[in-house]
């Protein structure tokens, strides 16, 4: 008999065996792992770099590199955010170009207040920082109104430009003698005379036109006519029929009597295709009463409304229902401007 308590046997199997513990040991031994344990399956060698990647030295080196990068990059990043981007440059592509009243045959810098004028046979290209490019066609007068990071505003007094941009919405703006064009990330042309007659054509993406309190969204493939007088046109797709275009122009810009206007509307609705429902939707902005009912009914014939959208809702201009109906056209999301990144490159 030893002086050890039975509990010692439970701890290290020494001393007098505790009968219950010994009985359980004998009973449960059958479940014990065999000696030697079964061999491990063949282990595939780890890639040689794996221990290196997870080593403390590697982690420390990675942290140090990241810190160093931060120290080097931060001042530059702060400068880029805080200071105006001075990379507005103009290059002469052909002919006689005048910049700020002086002839320019190669390239030069532009700043806010700068003026670019092309002659009958000249063409220029303006680089808008990292946002994109503007091609200035012959007989054009383009001013740089504002040029700082996040705010690039040009004014086309007359002539034609092609803008190719990749920037968040409302970063790039073009004033015309009439409405103002807000780029929503796309490529588009603007053409106007000094009085404000012209047109805006969106090649890809979306543009928002604004004048006073009127706004219109123009999708890729559509055109919006510009006219003096403070009235916005209704956008239409470039492949719309001549009858549709003519009727739309009369309805938008001519003061017709009621009978003539009803005739123009009938011609417009008769010539409309499913794709033209976008124009009909935009027409609803300026329509009321019977005219509004006729537009909605014809639109629903051409483009059935999705579930949950009602004629009554469309007639009262319910924004959510209008949106759902518009989505049926599959024109894409205005906010997804970055999907047009390829458009920044010359075609």
């Amino acid at each position, binding site marked *: 008999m030893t002086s050890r308590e039975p509990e010692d046997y439970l*701890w290290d199997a020494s001393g007098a065996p505790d009968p219950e513990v010994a009985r*359980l040991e004998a*009973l*449960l*031994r059958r*479940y014990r792992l065999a000696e030697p*344990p079964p061999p*491990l399956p063949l282990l595939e060698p*780890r890639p040689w770099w*794996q221990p290196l990647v997870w080593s403390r030295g590697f982690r420390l080196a990675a942290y140090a590199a990241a810190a160093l990068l931060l120290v080097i990059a931060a001042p530059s990043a702060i400068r880029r955010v805080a200071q105006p981007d001075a990379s507005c440059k103009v290059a002469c592509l052909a002919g006689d170009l005048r910049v700020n009243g002086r002839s320019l045959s190669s390239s030069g810098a532009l700043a806010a207040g700068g003026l670019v004028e092309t002659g009958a046979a000249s063409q220029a290209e303006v680089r808008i920082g990292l946002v994109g490019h503007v091609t200035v066609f012959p007989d054009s007068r383009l001013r740089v109104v504002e040029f700082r990071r996040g705010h690039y505003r040009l004014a086309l007094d007359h002539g034609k430009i092609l803008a190719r941009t990749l920037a968040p919405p409302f970063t790039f703006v073009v004033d015309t003698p009439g409405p103002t064009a807000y780029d929503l990330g796309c490529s588009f042309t603007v053409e106007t005379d000094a009085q404000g007659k012209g047109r805006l054509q969106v090649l890809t993406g979306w543009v928002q036109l604004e004048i006073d309190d009127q706004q219109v969204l123009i999708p890729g493939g559509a055109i919006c006519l510009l006219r003096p007088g403070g009235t916005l046109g209704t956008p239409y797709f470039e492949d719309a029929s001549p009858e549709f275009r003519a009727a739309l122009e009369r309805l938008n810009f001519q003061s017709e009597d009621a009978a003539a206007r009803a005739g123009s509307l009938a011609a417009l609705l008769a010539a409309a295709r499913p794709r033209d429902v976008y124009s009909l939707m935009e027409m609803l902005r300026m329509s009321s009463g019977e005219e509004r009912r006729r537009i909605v009914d014809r639109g629903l014939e051409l483009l059935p409304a999705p579930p949950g959208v009602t004629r009554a809702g469309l007639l009262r201009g319910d924004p959510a229902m209008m949106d759902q109906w518009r989505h049926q056209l599959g024109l894409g999301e205005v906010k997804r401007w970055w999907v047009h990144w390829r458009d920044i490159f010359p075609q």
Partner: protein
Amino acid sequence: MPAEIIHSGDAALVGAARRGDRAAFDALYRNYARMVHGLLLACAPRDAVEDLMQDVFLQAYRKLPRLRDDAAFGGWMAMIARNRARDYFRRTPAASVELPADLAGPGSASAEAEAAAALATIRALPQAYRETLVLRLVEGMTGEEIAERTGLAPASVRVNLHRGMKLLRERLSGLAQPTEAAET
């Protein structure tokens, strides 16, 4: 049979295994196989334990470069084993059927049935108790070995052994008491 104690060299073995030394990892496997086997047996079905054990060591081999402290290898292995057992039940819930503790009592004619009942009773105890008791009563490890292998403090192992054994005696004699808090 006492476990082979070479814990003082385990850190060196872990370092060598991390560098891809297969022999070093084999040695770690031999040293820790019983501990992993016991932890798995404390909760997973018996017929799945050997496969799970191999999984645990394969996982450990792959993850070894991420182990920051070589001296913590035992606790790290125990964690992988517990996670693997938990994973097993998550993926195969139907396999989680346990033998009832009262399948057979002491004095049953069949030793096999009695052993199964004893194991089931242990597995019905709180985790800290059942793991410690399986390592002690099934795998034959001493309290000191259990502490060294699992990374637990010896005092915790001692408390878990004694409280777990007390609870086990009560349950086996049909005098089960309310569960006590386990030392982990």
